[in-house]
């Protein structure tokens, strides 16, 4: 789960990483008051999980508390914020920037270590840089049991061009980021950009975390307080409802609603729909621990008003006959108006076929055939699809 910038910065600050003075605000009046308290100019930053906030106009340097309040209105009560799902903004002191750096901690799966990535240019898209100029990224493996050692941080700091006057601060900062990574069970802890402030008068240059990204491992939620899913972390209402059910779900905007079992198989069905010239309305897995949740799964699919629902499974523990029972129950309960294409195989498949036929479906056994049929139904005019439904939901 990705956390918001303000949460990442709280985690940073708690572990000794310097962050700008900041206030989290939920109303335009709070934004105005925060700007007055922090002093202007200051920066007003929308708290959203997407990248590219600057380009989208979701971050602004403001000159006065009034301007901060007006911009806060656009973000918290106006169309701009509504379009991007902004619920909160962070008001932050402006930093006198001398240089920008990049630093993050992630994982090296092959070596079975953590991996510190650093770059002498901040604000970079590290994904893009890894493709185009990987030699500009510094890499340092860190053993999980030993932890980050000071010499590793020192060496990175000098390699980034930080002089002796900032070396100690960098070692402290990276030690803090290491603690964030370990203590929060992070998949990624990133500071991008990491500011080096300009020396001014008797104030020497210093390091400040400009932005913060923290992705927490969902599998470790049980030892991280186990917070319930909250709506603000999801890009759609349906994705949130699916998460509450524990059903893996991704929102798309096409015509074919996937209701499949198994991550690998569902991903391939997604590919096959695209190969056949169709488009996917949603990715949904109801296998594994969810194989008795067919009714819930179909409700989510139907909420997309898809042209067709495509069910593909090949289950072992997630028994085919149990899944078919669930699908029959879902059809009886939800009375879907769109056609359903079903391809259910695996343990108990003979009985599953009987159940599906009794529910008015025409079960298939070949994934690619099922995908072709679903895509062709998704291209038929709605009227025709509705006719199919009047023959008993048969696809």
């Amino acid at each position, binding site marked *: 789960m990705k956390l918001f910038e303000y949460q990442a910065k709280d985690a940073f600050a708690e572990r000794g990483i310097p962050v700008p003075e900041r206030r989290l605000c939920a109303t335009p009046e709070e934004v105005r008051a925060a700007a007055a308290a922090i002093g202007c100019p200051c920066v007003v930053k929308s708290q959203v999980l997407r990248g590219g906030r600057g380009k989208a106009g979701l971050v602004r340097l403001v000159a006065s508390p009034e301007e901060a309040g007006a911009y806060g209105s656009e973000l918290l009560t106006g169309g701009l914020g509504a379009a991007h799902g902004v619920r909160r903004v962070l008001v932050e002191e402006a930093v006198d920037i001398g240089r920008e750096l990049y630093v993050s901690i992630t994982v090296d*799966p092959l070596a*079975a270590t953590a991996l510190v990535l650093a770059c002498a240019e901040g604000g970079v898209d590290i994904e893009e840089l890894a493709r185009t100029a990987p030699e500009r990224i510094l890499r340092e493996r860190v053993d999980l049991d030993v932890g980050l050692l000071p010499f590793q941080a020192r060496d990175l700091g000098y390699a980034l061009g930080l002089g002796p006057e900032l070396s100690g601060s960098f070692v402290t900062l990276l030690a803090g980021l290491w603690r964030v990574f370990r203590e929060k069970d992070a998949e990624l802890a990133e500071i991008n950009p990491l500011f080096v402030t300009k020396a001014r008068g008797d104030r020497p240059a210093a390091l400040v975390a400009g932005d913060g990204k923290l992705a927490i*491992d969902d599998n470790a939620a049980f030892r991280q307080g186990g917070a319930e899913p909250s709506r603000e972390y999801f890009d759609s209402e349906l994705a949130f409802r699916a998460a509450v059910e524990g059903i*893996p779900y991704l929102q798309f905007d096409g015509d074919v609603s996937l209701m499949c079992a*198994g991550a690998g198989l569902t*991903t391939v069905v*997604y590919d096959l729909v695209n*190969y056949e010239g169709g488009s996917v309305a949603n990715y949904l897995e109801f296998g594994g621990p969810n194989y008795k949740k067919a009714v819930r799964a179909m409700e989510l699919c139907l909420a997309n008003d898809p042209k067709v629902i495509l069910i593909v499974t090949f289950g072992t523990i997630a028994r085919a006959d149990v899944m078919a029972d669930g699908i029959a129950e879902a059809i009886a309960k939800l009375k879907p108006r769109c056609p359903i294409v079903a391809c259910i195989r695996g*343990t108990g498949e003979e009985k599953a076929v009987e159940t599906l036929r009794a529910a008015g479906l025409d079960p298939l056994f070949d*994934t690619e055939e099922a995908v072709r049929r679903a895509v062709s139904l998704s291209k038929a005019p709605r009227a025709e699809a509705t006719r199919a439904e009047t023959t008993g939901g048969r696809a």
Partner: protein
Amino acid sequence: MSVFIDRGDRVLVQGITGAEGSFWTKHMIELGTRVVVGVTPGKEGQSVEGVPVYHTVRRAVADVPADAAMLFVPPRFTKDAVFEALDSGFAKIVAVADGIPLQDAIQIRKAALSCGARVVGGNTSGVISPGLAMMGMFPYWIERVYRPGRIGVMTRSGSLTNEVTAMIVRAGFGVSSLIGVGGDPVPGARFAEMLPDFQSDPGTDAVVIIGELGGSMEEEVAEAMESGAFRKPVVAFLGGRTAPAGRRMGHAGAIVSGGKGSVADKIAALEKAGAAVADRPRLVGELLQRALGAASRK
């Protein structure tokens, strides 16, 4: 012949009295696997399918020696269970749990590497040599999916495995050994690390790898082919070709990150190394026929 597990291996099952543990122990034995001893804390003195149960691994192996450890243990306890097996000297361990914390998985792999042990999983169905033995959860009784034969399979996905092995069998082949390395970002064992076993297995003519976006395991197979370390034909099928950038599809490990892991890059690397890459499950069978010729089938 087989890779990883055969009828000679004595298997210890951790979590043997649980619902999954007891159900699959029964099936492992039915297939011919030599399950000799089980462990569930607090259940010593019981037995499952005639297999004696002990409180701890140390107590179990003191009475009943075993060669391989099969873990039916929930994800949050998997690290503990793997280290318990390593502590008793097990060099072959299969952990099926889906949902092992990432940083636990790193420590598991690190420990396995430093002990010279092989830990397969998590987030896997396990390992099977059809007709001989298995450690894990496979519907081996479905003939059109798990027919014994001479094709080795390595996979990151359980559900996709049934789909692809069905196509291998439909094309007239069968499976020698199948290793599910699992769908996690940091699997205990990686594709390329299993290749030497398939290279030296006289019962394997070719290897099918079932991969997907994310990580670099497919590229490592290509490297092993390029270096000449692996010399048998390879057919690959990869999921997530059309996956949108930056979104995690299905498995935790299925995400492009650090500029690495796109399916296009994987296909390019594999094809350059001489592997045949199928874009649809059905093509896997056809590409195997082409690679091996009709004469050497079965």
